[in-house]
């Protein structure tokens, strides 16, 4: 029992297969199931996939266009909005695009401020029209993008100029707001659920026609009788107890309940003190509700994949143009959405209902009378309740639960989800943002749900008459609970079920007893125990020892109640149920069995599966009576607060690329937009990756590079070892990618002076302050150049020489004499050294010239070739194939000449990779990924490089990803405060490195989380197969930390191209081109 700990519970226990990384034994199988279970629960057919149209040339529509379009019989200007494209819509429009591919991909919207993309319908940047004119290759493409694209949406409004006639067809009317984007592929008018009987009515005319034909033939019309439908049940439908929803209140004939929405709270990777504070706050809130009956209800909502896709499409101003024969941008998004659907991500929604008022007979009679006039609850009663209910706002809105009043649509959603328990949510609620349900629609849908039960059966069968969906639900009750140590060792006990890959529903009906009530209750119980003891004594029989023990415990608790704070005395007596669903009875029971097993093994909570399932299932519906009195749990409010069903583990933004899912206590998709920190949060864009070799750093770097490149971000990846170069061979990227192999480059490529760009006056504000800033920046650049050149010179000379004090002085002297401009070269430094009136100086010059003879060192000398790294290619991979990287643990004296040369090469290559980003516009999105950054440590130019990178990242909208094997390197560089995103992979070997990594994540050290890092991406020793995924602990820009499982398998072929294992490289050699072929 005690060997299993809940995830995220550090407790310092060894947890090779435990902890946050931990999975229960059946977990792998569960995962499998999640993958093979595309239809369940978050539901089949729900959450349509938003299909995006590929960029395509404008279809010239002239007013005199004679081509008939479907539905033109209605004469409305609005029908013309998507007009001419209509017939083509059913066929993929990609074909049309391909002839007009611009050959050189441009990063469009270069002049637009990036912040504009944060608000989907923000007013257009003034630069937008100008930009359209500027890039002729891009403009036709832009103007033909789907109407909800930002460019079109904006164009007509603010420029004031009359839009091109060709464009008006594609442009959405300016009145439209971003939130109400029409689904791009769906031009059919929105239909209300009430209209679902349409097909029937449409069928009617043909049948009429048939019958008229028959009438022609036979003279006597046969009388058609409708088939008689017989219901055996006396009353096939029963009204719910709730009679009215008013604001956030629900009325039943006897009670009024106020409903609150509890937002999700972060649980994983928080210090225990914080968690305890949270639980204490929540307990206090519950204690404040003493005397009321609560209904805590958690339901789920499938992840709105298409909403996300629309968001990312809105934020992607210029995706990479499509390459014929490869998945287009639209296909890419569709694949991601399919993947999201298949992995069954459900978002939890927690509701808390407080039943606070009993209604008088008069009130409900008045309501009944008024109902017949269509009025409902009397206004006087509502106004009175409105005043009473404000106290709950105060109690629940504070730190802890931070509850807010629910809205009526949310209540309707809850009611529908409760009636159709564990069934697919109604389609097309989330998918079409503007297709929201009208008031009452969802409740009307409850009519379609039929319930079947078997006598003493273990499940209830629910059938949705409309969709034909059949579901089986098993309701489990929380039975005996052993003591739990909640923040330290165990998970919150009603959050724990989220480990399983299918969504479940929770319902807790709880009476909160204040100190008086609970003490009376306890005292009564104590008297009964005492009297029993007395009985035994009277009869001269030994009383069972448990009686004395229980009496003593009752005394202790009673003492706590009478002398302690209200929080300690308040008790929550109630019923806690979990509903598990399945498509078949067997599946449902199997899931219930797994859930029971998980709870008993890891939490020592015994879940019971009682009979009377239909009543239990009914208990989930707000307002319905409690099924039965069994399995009542009596607990202090602390324990009830520690149930925490609203705990969650989200991380990342919701506007970036899909990179995987959280893998801790629940599974949520993880999206990462590397420009989110700069564009929205106004933070630096420095991201750090730390892992042991094989931890998946390079693969993640490559995957992020690929995804960013697809979105049209200018990506530069520095990969000294070279496998990422194969990324450039991916067919969809190939025309826009190039590989730069430094080991075969021309002399001067890495000339240190030109690696640091001179700031431009235009980058600073106008006026005196700007002048000053500019001057400072220019001199800073000069100082940095000098520092870099000195460091490079020190790296080039043998370590014995470098260690001498005079060497540093001489270099400094020489470097000072050379003007620190971009045009200077290392040869100037050598010449200056040679001219010095000093033997040591001449010796140093000779030493430098000696190194210059080595082919690789030639890269440092001379001037850089022109146009080496233009901003043309979207993806550039810089490699140093064949370079032997030295082991930093070995003294420099023992490095071979080649290894010694690797150090300055890496330093300068890092700078070269970043240098490219300073070429284009400041606001255009850029990404630079730097592998093997630990070589930067120990050199002051290295630190200044990273600091500068972090500082510049905001100004230049540059996402910089830095991968290192040891977090100490980054911490040693002291740029931790500038880091916005951190990924820490598997670190199992060294405890010290693990604690450094935790420090980088800002997670408490020595709290047991080290074990979590060691257990990341833990391979199953019993299987011979390679691990198909990698896990990281990720900290996002908002400081949320979570274990994530990186999964980019939805991109076809990406993993094959990123596989860095030797076998895979060998296997791919035949299929994938080698690096040499790729070099541009």
């Amino acid at each position: 029992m005690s060997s299993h700990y809940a995830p995220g519970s550090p407790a310092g226990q060894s947890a090779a297969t435990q902890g946050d990384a931990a999975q229960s034994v059946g977990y792998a199988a569960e995962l499998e199931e999640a993958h093979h279970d595309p239809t369940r629960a978050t539901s089949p057919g729900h959450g349509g996939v938003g299909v995006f149209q590929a960029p395509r040339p404008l279809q010239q529509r002239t007013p005199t266009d004679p081509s008939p379009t479907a539905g033109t019989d209605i004469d409305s200007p609005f029908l013309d909005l998507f007009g001419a494209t209509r017939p083509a819509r059913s066929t993929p429009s990609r074909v049309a695009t391909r002839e007009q591919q611009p050959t050189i991909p441009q990063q469009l919207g270069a002049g637009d401020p990036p912040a504009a993309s944060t608000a989907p319908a923000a007013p257009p940047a003034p630069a937008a029209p100008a930009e359209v004119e500027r890039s002729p290759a891009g403009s036709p493409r832009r103007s033909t993008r789907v109407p909800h694209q930002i460019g079109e949406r904006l164009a007509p409004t603010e420029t004031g100029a009359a839009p091109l006639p060709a464009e008006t067809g594609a442009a959405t009317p300016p009145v439209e707001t971003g939130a109400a984007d029409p689904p791009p592929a769906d031009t059919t008018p929105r239909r209300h659920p009430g209209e679902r009987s349409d097909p029937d009515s449409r069928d009617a005319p043909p049948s009429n026609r048939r019958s008229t034909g028959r009438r022609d033939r036979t003279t006597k019309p046969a009388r058609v009788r409708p088939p008689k439908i017989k219901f055996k049940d006396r009353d096939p439908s029963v009204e719910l107890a709730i009679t009215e929803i008013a604001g956030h209140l629900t009325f039943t004939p006897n009670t009024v309940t106020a409903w609150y929405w509890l937002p999700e709270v972060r649980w994983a990777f928080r210090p225990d003190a914080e968690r305890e504070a949270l639980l204490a706050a929540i307990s206090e809130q519950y204690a404040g509700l003493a005397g009321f009956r609560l209904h805590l209800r958690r339901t789920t909502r499938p992840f709105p994949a298409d909403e996300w896709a629309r968001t990312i499409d809105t934020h992607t101003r210029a995706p990479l143009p499509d390459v014929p024969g490869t998945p287009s941008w639209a296909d890419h998004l569709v694949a991601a959405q399919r993947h999201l659907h298949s992995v069954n991500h459900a978002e939890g929604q927690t509701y808390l209902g407080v039943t606070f008022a009993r209604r008088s007979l008069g009130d409900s009679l008045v309501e009944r009378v008024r109902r017949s006039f269509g009025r409902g609850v009397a206004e006087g009663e509502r106004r009175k309740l409105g005043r009473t209910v404000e106290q709950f706002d105060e109690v629940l809105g504070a730190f802890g639960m931070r509850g807010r009043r629910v809205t009526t649509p949310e209540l309707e959603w809850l009611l529908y989800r409760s009636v159709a328990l564990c069934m697919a949510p109604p389609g097309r609620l989330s998918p079409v943002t503007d297709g929201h349900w009208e008031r009452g629609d969802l409740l009307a849908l409850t009519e379609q749900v039929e319930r079947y039960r078997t006598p003493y059966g273990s499940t209830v069968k629910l059938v949705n008459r409309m969709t034909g969906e059949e579901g089986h639900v098993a309701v489990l009750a929380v039975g005996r609970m052993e003591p739990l140590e909640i923040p330290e060792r165990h998970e919150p006990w009603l959050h724990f079920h989220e480990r399983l890959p299918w969504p479940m529903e929770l319902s807790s009906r709880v009476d909160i007893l204040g100190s008086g009530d609970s003490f009376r209750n306890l005292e009564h119980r104590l008297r009964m125990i005492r009297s029993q003891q007395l009985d035994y004594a009277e009869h001269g029989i030994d009383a069972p020892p448990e009686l004395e023990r229980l009496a003593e415990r009752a005394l202790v608790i009673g003492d706590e109640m009478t002398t302690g704070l209200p929080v300690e005395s308040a008790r929550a007596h109630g019923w806690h149920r979990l509903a598990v669903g399945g498509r078949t009875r067997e599946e449902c029971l199997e899931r219930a069995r797994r859930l029971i097993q998980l709870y008993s093994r890891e939490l020592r909570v015994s879940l019971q599966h009682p009979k009377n399932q239909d009543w239990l299932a009914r208990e989930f519906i707000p307002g319905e009576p409690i099924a039965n009195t069994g399995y009542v749990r009596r607990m202090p409010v602390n324990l009830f607060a520690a149930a925490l069903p609203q705990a969650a583990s989200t991380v990342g933004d919701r506007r970036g690329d899909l990179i995987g899912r959280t893998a801790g206590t629940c599974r949520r998709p993880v999206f990462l937009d590397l420009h989110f920190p700069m564009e929205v949060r106004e933070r630096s864009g420095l991201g750090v990756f730390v892992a042991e070799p094989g931890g998946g750093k390079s693969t993640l770097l490559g995957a992020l590079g690929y995804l960013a490149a697809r979105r049209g971000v200018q990506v530069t990846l520095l990969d000294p070892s070279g496998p990422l170069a194969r990324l450039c061979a991916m067919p969809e990227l190939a025309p826009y990618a190039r590989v730069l192999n430094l080991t075969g480059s021309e002399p001067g490529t890495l000339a240190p002076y030109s690696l640091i760009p001179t700031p431009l006056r235009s980058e600073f504000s106008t006026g005196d302050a700007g002048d000053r800033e500019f001057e400072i920046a220019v001199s800073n650049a000069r100082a940095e150049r000098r520092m870099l050149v000195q460091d490079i010179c020190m790296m080039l000379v043998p370590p014995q020489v470098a260690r001498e004090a005079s060497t540093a002085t001489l270099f400094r002297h020489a470097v000072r004499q050379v003007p620190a401009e971009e045009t200077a070269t290392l040869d100037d430094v050598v010449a200056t050294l040679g001219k010095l009136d000093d033997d040591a100086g001449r010796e140093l010059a000779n030493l430098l010239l000696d190194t210059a003879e080595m082919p690789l060192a030639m890269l440092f000398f001379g001037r850089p070739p022109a146009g080496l790294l233009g901003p043309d290619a979207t993806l550039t991979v810089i490699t140093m194939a064949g370079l032997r990287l030295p082991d930093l643990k070995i003294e420099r004296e023992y490095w071979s000449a080649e290894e010694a040369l690797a150090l300055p090469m890496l330093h300068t290559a890092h700078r070269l990779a970043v240098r490219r980003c300073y070429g284009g516009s400041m606001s255009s999105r850029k990404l630079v990924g730097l592998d093997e950054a630990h070589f930067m440590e120990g050199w002051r130019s290295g630190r200044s490089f990273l600091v500068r990178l972090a500082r510049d990242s905001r100004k230049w909208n540059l996402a910089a990803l830095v991968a290192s094997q040891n977090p100490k390197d980054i911490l040693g560089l002291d740029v931790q405060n500038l880091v916005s995103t951190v990924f820490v992979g598997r670190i199992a070997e060294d405890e010290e490195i693990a604690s450094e990594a935790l420090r980088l994540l800002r997670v408490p050290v020595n709290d047991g989380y080290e074990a979590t890092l060691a257990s990341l991406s833990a391979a199953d020793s019993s299987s011979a197969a390679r691990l198909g995924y990698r896990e990281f602990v990720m900290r996002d820009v908002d400081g949320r930390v979570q274990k994530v499982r990186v999964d980019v398998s939805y991109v076809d072929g990406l993993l094959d191209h990123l596989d860095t294992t030797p076998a895979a490289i060998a296997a791919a050699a035949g299929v994938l081109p080698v690096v040499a072929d790729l070099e541009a």
Partner: protein
Amino acid sequence: MRLRTDDDIYRARLVYLGPPGYTLPVHLPYAQYGLFMLLVPLYMFVHWLFTLQVELFPAWEIALAIVTTSFVFRYVDPDRPARMVIHTALTDWRRTREPAAEQRDPRLVGSRIRIREELA
């Protein structure tokens, strides 16, 4: 924080040992006597419905009540009070085997609920 429920206090087994001065050979929970005492008149009433006469010593009724009580209490434990067991038996009784055709329960319909956006 070590958190535990108060349930064990409510789990104490309270049994009737017998009247003062006389200890019964079997110790049964109080609830069992209570149920027995409810069942005897019930069976007597049923008996009366058939025969329209009341017996002086309802031997059959007592025997049946004993059997029923022990049958009910086979399913009773601290988490499943007798009330719940009886309730379940009464609401869920129809057949114990899974039937070929399921019984359709009434649909629960919420379409008549009135909704107003604001409370007052």
